[in-house]
């Protein structure tokens, strides 16, 4: 009896140990912001990079969701205790917490999405994106597609990685006006005063709906929500109103793919390929080539891009598509400046 018990306990312990041994030699860990790992855009895209690395490089992968910003520091700390070879923190809002943790634990490798430290910290690699390049294309496209002559945008929080989308969108539309003698206006963001519409959160779908409704009431027929999962609320509104009345431009991931139920409302998406930069960072760390600094994703490197039009493939005129190709080439070779 006693031996039987011991055997049972022993096999349970062995089972635990086996899973521990099975775990990979190198583990990449991700801390999300309050949007959560399944936000259909921001955190999920970064997590895809970790998962790709898991599949192709054979590294172990873990994530930890933050429910509140008071969790950031605690979450990073519990991953430090959990033997992570690299900790990837996702989002500008984790900037302070990551800096504190990186300085307190100089041996631990960190990488943060959407934040660049100046001066750089030797054990932190920042990943930033020239999102305005892709958003510029989206602005041009939207200006060419609108029937009311009014576009709308709103953001999550007034922070640089959000407003850079709105800057690019605004300037893309302005460039369309300049090239075609049109008069398309963009509501929700003023690039000069740096003021605009913000939900002040990255998680309320209700806000996404309400803000899109307000813009729609003001005449906008294409809206760019730059607030992670909040945009899903806007997509639900577009789904109800019909895509003739309101179209949505997705951000971060190609939302046609990640939000398939509402896929038909997305004219396109401004993709920010966090998955490819995160994968890149993990690969560097695995091969011992990790060093602190900044990694920039651009249109040229494929770090940012405009997603396919999917259901709108036939609706977008060929002439507009050709112009977009020309502008893309112009941005890459530097002949068109997306910054004013």
């Amino acid at each position, binding site marked *: 009896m006693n031996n039987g018990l011991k055997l049972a306990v022993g096999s*349970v312990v062995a*089972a*635990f140990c086996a*899973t521990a041994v099975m775990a990979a030699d190198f583990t990449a860990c991700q801390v999300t912001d*309050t949007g959560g790992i399944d936000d259909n855009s921001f955190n999920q895209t970064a997590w895809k990079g970790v998962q790709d690395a898991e599949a192709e490089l054979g590294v172990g992968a*873990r*994530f*930890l*969701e933050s*429910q*509140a*910003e*008071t*969790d950031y*520091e*605690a*979450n990073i*700390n*519990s*991953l*430090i*205790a*959990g033997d992570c070879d690299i900790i990837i923190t996702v989002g500008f809002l984790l900037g302070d917490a990551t800096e504190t*943790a990186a300085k*307190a*634990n100089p041996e631990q490798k960190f990488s943060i999405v959407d934040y660049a430290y100046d001066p750089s910290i030797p054990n932190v690699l920042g990943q930033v994106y020239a999102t305005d390049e892709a958003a510029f294309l989206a602005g041009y496209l939207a200006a060419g597609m609108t029937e009311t002559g009014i576009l709308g945008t709103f953001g999550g*929080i*007034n*922070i*640089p990685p959000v*407003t850079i989308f709105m800057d690019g969108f605004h300037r893309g539309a302005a460039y369309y006006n300049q090239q075609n003698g049109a008069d398309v206006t963009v509501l929700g963001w003023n690039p000069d005063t*740096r003021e605009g519409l913000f939900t*002040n*959160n990255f998680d309320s779908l209700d806000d996404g709906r309400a803000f899109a409704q307000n813009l729609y009431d003001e005449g906008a027929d294409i809206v760019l929500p730059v607030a992670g999962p909040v945009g899903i609320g806007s997509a639900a509104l577009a789904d109800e109103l019909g895509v003739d009345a309101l179209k949505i431009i997705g951000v971060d991931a190609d939302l046609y793919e990640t939000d398939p139920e509402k896929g038909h409302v997305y004219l396109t998406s401004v993709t920010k390929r966090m998955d490819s930069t995160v994968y890149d960072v993990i690969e560097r760390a695995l091969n011992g080539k990790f060093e602190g600094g900044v990694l920039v994703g651009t249109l040229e490197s494929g770090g940012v891009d405009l997603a396919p039009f999917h259901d709108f493939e036939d609706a977008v005129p060929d002439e507009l598509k050709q112009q977009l190709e020309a502008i893309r080439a112009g941005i890459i070779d530097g002949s068109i400046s997306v910054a004013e």
Partner: protein
Amino acid sequence: MTDPQPPGTLSDQLLDRAAPDRTAFEDLVVVPILAVFIALVLGALTMFATNVDLPTIGRSYVALLEGSVGSLSAISETLTAAMPLTLAGLGIALGFRAGLFNIGAEGQVLIGGMAAVIVGFSFDGLPAAIHLPLALLAGAIAGGLYASIAGWLRAATGAHEVISTIMLNLISYRLVDYLLRLDFIQREGRADPISRSVLETAELPRLLTWIDANLRLHAGIFLMLAAVVVIHWLLFRTKLGFEFRASGASPDAARYAGMRAGLIIVLAMGMAGALAGLAGANQGLGVLGRATPGFSAGIGFDAIAVALLGRSHPYGVLLAGLLFGALEAGGRQMQVDAGVSIDLIGIIQALIIVFIAAPLLVRSLFPWAFRKLAKVGRE
């Protein structure tokens, strides 16, 4: 709270009178413990239903235990999470005792925390011995005044505090958004709503950084313990506390006994708000060192559950706060070790509350854990 006089035999009634605390003890101690137990079992079933395999479920509960009490850093995290919950929970418990259902702790946490942070980054050059108490006091006063609005509305116009505190919560969210954009509050060089950093002299000092720089336990723990003792003394040893409890038990009787009902309502709400404000100050000065729109993080709502679980008794609230703190800290470890979603912790917390709120259900599930008489009493 205790069952009415059981209609049993005379000897049963005499027995009940001889040991009146038995039923109370069961309600206060046995029911919560069993509620936690059932919640954990149902939590495991929930995991099982979502295709989590058995070893993972086992591992996740081991992680829950390890992450809450299994190491020094786990205990530090548990205590850190317990502090604001206990402080705000005490406030809500005080309200319950006085017959007030204060849903507004979330707003009071925000307003108190904002005030503490504002004082905390102003007044450069003050010594810590003055600056820190001043910042805490600002948090308590601001939270107290904000809650008193609802108390005054109730006393003066009869507006129900449940409605008015919910509305005040909504106002506080927007008020904090607005405040954080003011030039003298917003951090320089930032366009998003984030306050300046609290000066070192106003920070609640971290206590264990000499062991490990990552330990977050801070001096707020003394604040929490002191608040528990003070509120216990206030409720059960002072005239004011008696008036609170009398008004809660029977407002009419209290009024006929010559107590000033309106004043008691305003005072009770004010003190509840002051405690919630301290919870906010605790977060602003001890954990974050700044304020942002979401820094209250639902503490004010979780605190309602803490007060219910603690049966509105200060010591009970402390234990409930520690339990919820342990669930929060352990839940994090659960996610790291077993990859189980942290949402499960929310489910377990909710289940605990459901069973606490239904003591009869717990009694019927575990009849052997309770004295026979209680069962007779229900028939």
